[in-house]
């Protein structure tokens, strides 16, 4: 049975999604670091106005720049609006036209409100970065927003049918849809609401993108309960939470037959130590289906 890094050996883009609070960012960082350790060049992209990825690497915030954190590993924080503005600047032939466009209140409204534009810009950036620097691991926004991100190219190409933007949107839509080139990783906790939301996400992916996720990562598991007589000394919290974890793991395994990685809750602050431990744990074999 393969491990996640074998599974992701040839993809150009790895989109990591999950509900807020399940450890998606740390898992994305671990996937990037693990791939880099095994010889691929990797960049981990964070799309969040509040930077937190840098903490996992023990580095300073990116502020939009690409930060090298290892021989083959780097990370970058993206602000979608900034990326869109840069795209407009690059594509509008005349500097003066670009400046006037970017300053107009109409552009402001359209950039913020119009569906798909910012997401398109992020995906285009990911593709161009990947071509230059290896695999891109995208720490996507939390669940609902991630679906918008992935659906954006298709949406835009439906509305803007012609011209360079229409063509671009269609190209990106094909890229995202190709399971050989773009992998989807869903991260969840073995708790009721995240597990439920994850199963709904997986169903939505199938329905709206005609695709399945490639890997499910269940994060934050409490350790298995010790056998008696130790069992008597287990605090209620541990006992209840582990029980919940086991029930939700069962539910997830029943509904999702694909590859599944399980990660423990570790007594480590976010940082390089936690990252190293997670990379090591991810390197072990995956569970599959009901197993």
């Amino acid at each position, binding site marked *: 049975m393969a491990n996640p890094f074998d599974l992701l050996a040839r993809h150009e883009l790895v989109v990591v999604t999950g509900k*807020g609070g399940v450890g998606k960012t740390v898992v994305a960082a671990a996937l990037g670091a693990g791939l880099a350790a095994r010889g691929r060049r990797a960049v981990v992209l964070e799309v969040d106005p509040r930077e937190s990825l840098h903490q996992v690497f023990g580095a300073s915030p990116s502020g939009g720049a690409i930060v090298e954190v290892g021989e083959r590993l780097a990370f970058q924080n993206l602000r979608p609006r900034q990326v869109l503005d840069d795209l407009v600047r690059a594509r509008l032939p005349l500097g003066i036209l670009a400046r006037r466009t970017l300053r107009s209140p*109409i552009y402001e409204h359209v950039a913020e*409100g119009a569906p798909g534009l910012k997401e398109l810009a992020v995906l285009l950036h990911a593709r161009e970065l990947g071509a230059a620097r290896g695999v891109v691991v995208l720490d996507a926004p939390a669940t609902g927003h991630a679906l918008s991100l992935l659906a954006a190219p298709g949406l835009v190409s439906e509305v803007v049918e012609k*011209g360079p933007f229409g063509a671009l949107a269609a190209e990106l839509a094909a890229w995202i849809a190709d399971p050989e080139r773009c992998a989807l990783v869903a991260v969840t906790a073995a708790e009721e609401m995240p597990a439920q939301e994850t199963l709904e996400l997986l169903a939505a992916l199938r329905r709206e993108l005609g695709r399945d996720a490639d890997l499910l990562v269940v994060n934050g598991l409490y350790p298995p309960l010790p056998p008696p007589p130790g069992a008597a000394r287990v605090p209620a919290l541990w006992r209840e939470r582990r029980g919940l974890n086991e029930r939700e793991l069962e539910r997830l395994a029943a509904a999702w037959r694909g590859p599944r990685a399980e990660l423990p809750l570790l007594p480590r602050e976010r940082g390089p130590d936690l990252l190293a431990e997670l990379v090591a744990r991810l390197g072990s074999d995956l569970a599959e289906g009901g197993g």
Partner: protein
Amino acid sequence: MTLDLAADAPRLLVLVGAGGVGKTTLAAALAAASAARGRDTLVMTFDPSLRLKDALGVGEEARERAVEVPLAAPGVLAASLLDARRTFDGLVARYAPDAAARDRILGNRFYRHLAGHLGGILEYMAVERLFEAAADERWRRLVLDTPPARQALDFLAAPARIVGFLDSGALRLALRPWFDERGRLRPARRLGPLGRRAERTLDELVGLDLLRDMAEFFAAFAPLFAGFRRRALEVQALLRSPRTLFLLVAAPGEERAADTLFFARQLVGEGYRLGPILVNRVHPRQPAPADAPAALAEGLRLCHWLGERDHRGLAHLRALLGAERPPLPVPLLAREPTSLRELAALGETLAASRHST
């Protein structure tokens, strides 16, 4: 500073906070405690989990209207689920001046694309539903859960942004050189050579069809715009009213404490009333393991570490917030509340809490 759910005020409680902190569960629990104190209460949630829906006993009908929850309490507890997609169409249907105008909008290709995917539409629809619920005298208390957001205050910015986007005046002005009042393309000869070249460029860039659909949409939407704008302004007034209280829900992690402070300051700075900051799911402190066999020690170490981590985070937040605004810790329950009884019990814990010293 405590929250007195038995009193008349606040009439509206708004729960804000980042995704994954437990807002929806707390909203339901607070609403149960409010009903237990004799006030007919409506809780408005976004996409609660299956179990929460089961616990509240609400099904798909709660997307259409408020559904009573079978809580044995002196006051009524009702719940409604917010469904953005459905709501926008409903609004257009309700406020369009006539059937022809309504059909023109609903059938417009640009509208159909927009209604499902416009940035901030979920938040804006919550605002519209809130407006309706607040006008209903029946509810002595409203508890509004807000959509999970990366930025805790996305919810407040969204309506203004949507109204700005829909401001058909500005957009129509921009589209006017090419399209007349009814959204019909002006004859090319009237544009002059410069206009014709611009027209070709635009056609190449995005297609004139799209621009025509946009022009038609904004022309058809104009009569509704005034209503949208008025309601957005009224909800703004409601949100700033002295009878509205915001509750910021945060996780205990130390690394988020600065963000929590930032949001708290932003809320207060923009004129919203902020109640106790609820620090949710705080792990209990456990002694460090001494003398335990390996399998047990690992788990005990973890439990100890979690308790210490949360305790440190809470202390850090308390230091940042100062004596004026002490955070209210909400202990992590061994079991997630999945029944009405458990939600009501959590509600009682919240109602009885005093701020931590």
